[in-house]
């Protein structure tokens, strides 16, 4: 009997399955077929900046999280996503789609933790599951609600970043942080935890 219980241990560990909803994410990333028809003709005016609605605040009720969202880009020294230095803030990838987008992946990344500052805004991100609700307030004051459809865990060496930094496919919100085993020597986590959410039906 004891042997039986021990065999069943992995299922009792209390950890949720690491990944769920991956197929949904792949489907969302598929670009729509181009429209056919006549030859498109555009004006040749110099390009000016399009109006962008930047995410300003992220709320996740299940995690009791309310974090400021900064517009960030690329860390010039490393070429990596410039996650805000303060672990209490999270960063929106300003080169990708904003809240006004009708296609592509709106990306917000945040720290799970930091050696100096402790737990980060996304410390419990991996506890999210399909159906959980996210609320994003835009720079224009508008509030958009998203529903989680997937939680995925990848080794950082294998995370399909093209899928999450895509500018085509169905519009979606992607939250990214670190997870998995921690290498105390390099002070890095092995994995990325990726949450995908879709606009909630109105």
């Amino acid at each position: 009997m004891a042997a039986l219980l021990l065999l069943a241990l992995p299922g009792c560990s209390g950890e949720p399955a690491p990944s769920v909803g991956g197929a949904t994410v792949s489907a969302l990333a598929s670009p729509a077929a181009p429209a056919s028809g006549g030859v498109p003709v555009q004006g040749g005016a110099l390009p000016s900046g399009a109006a962008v609605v930047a995410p300003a605040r992220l709320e996740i009720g299940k995690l009791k999280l309310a974090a400021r969202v900064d517009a960030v880009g690329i860390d010039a020294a490393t070429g990596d996503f410039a996650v805000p230095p303060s672990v209490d803030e999270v960063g929106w990838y300003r080169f990708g789609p904003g809240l006004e987008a009708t296609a592509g992946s709106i990306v917000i990344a945040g720290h799970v933790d930091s050696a100096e500052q402790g737990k980060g805004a996304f410390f419990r991100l991996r506890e999210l599951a399909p159906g959980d609700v996210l609320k994003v307030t835009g720079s224009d004051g508008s509030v958009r609600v998203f529903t989680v459809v997937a939680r995925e865990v990848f080794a950082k060496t294998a995370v399909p970043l093209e899928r999450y930094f895509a500018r085509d496919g169905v519009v979606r919100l992607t939250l990214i942080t670190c997870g998995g085993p921690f290498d105390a020597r390099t002070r890095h986590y092995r994995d990325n935890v990726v949450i995908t959410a879709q606009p909630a039906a109105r």
Partner: protein
Amino acid sequence: MRIRRTLAGLAVVAAATVGAGALATAPAHAAGPSKVSVVHGIPGQPVDVYVNGAKTLNNFQPSTVAGPLDLPAGKYDIVIVKPGDPVSSPIIKVDQAAVPADANITLVAHLTADGKPTLTPFVNDVSKVAAGKARLVVRHTAAAPAVDVRAGGQPVFKNLTNPNEAKADIAAGTVSADVVLAGTTTVAIPAASLTLAEGTSTIVYAVGSAEGKTLGVVAQKIEGLHSTPGGVPSGTGGLLEQRTPWGWYALATAALIAAVGAGVVLRRRVRA
């Protein structure tokens, strides 16, 4: 005017927009089609564009960009006429222009340095740009002498001549640029602001005629050249692992249950 086939040296030339008839006459190749756009850089003269005898652009306006279209590799006859004119009285005519496979090409109808209408093919660099960057390409297709292109007052492209291009990948954002006669501060095209979106290529054509006082610019944008960040490093604390050691709790619980279970079994045996 009639264009010599030196154009093929650039491995290009194609047609704007090819009708079904034209496509049917193109030789079949295993390789993929090319993306072909057409830029109208001749001020004041709308045109019709014929490809392999079929009218494919009707009343195509100056300073506009048509396409891109997928064109199979092959040879194409291109004729550009005033709107409504027969193909027998062309403004520009190119016979057997070669379109390579798997390329991204822009055909520019423009003036030569000495002011004659011509059609020049350019191969567009559609390689990915690094995350955070944008590609700026400037093409001299105006009836004007050599120029320098300045951004923020500093020359960035020097001594550019018709029909050549200069390009660079620079930080995405808004820049103010102007065009001066090469080596001088004599402004040929006044400063204008342009926003270079990350992960795109913005191609700016200097068009028109200095003598005719019609110098200006036409812009073409190619999207989808973005790269991803190198990674998303977002944790240095290692606190996740110091958290509730669920595994140990589970193990302890299991052991406890096992012990109780064993006790129950023993007691039953005693009773039995």
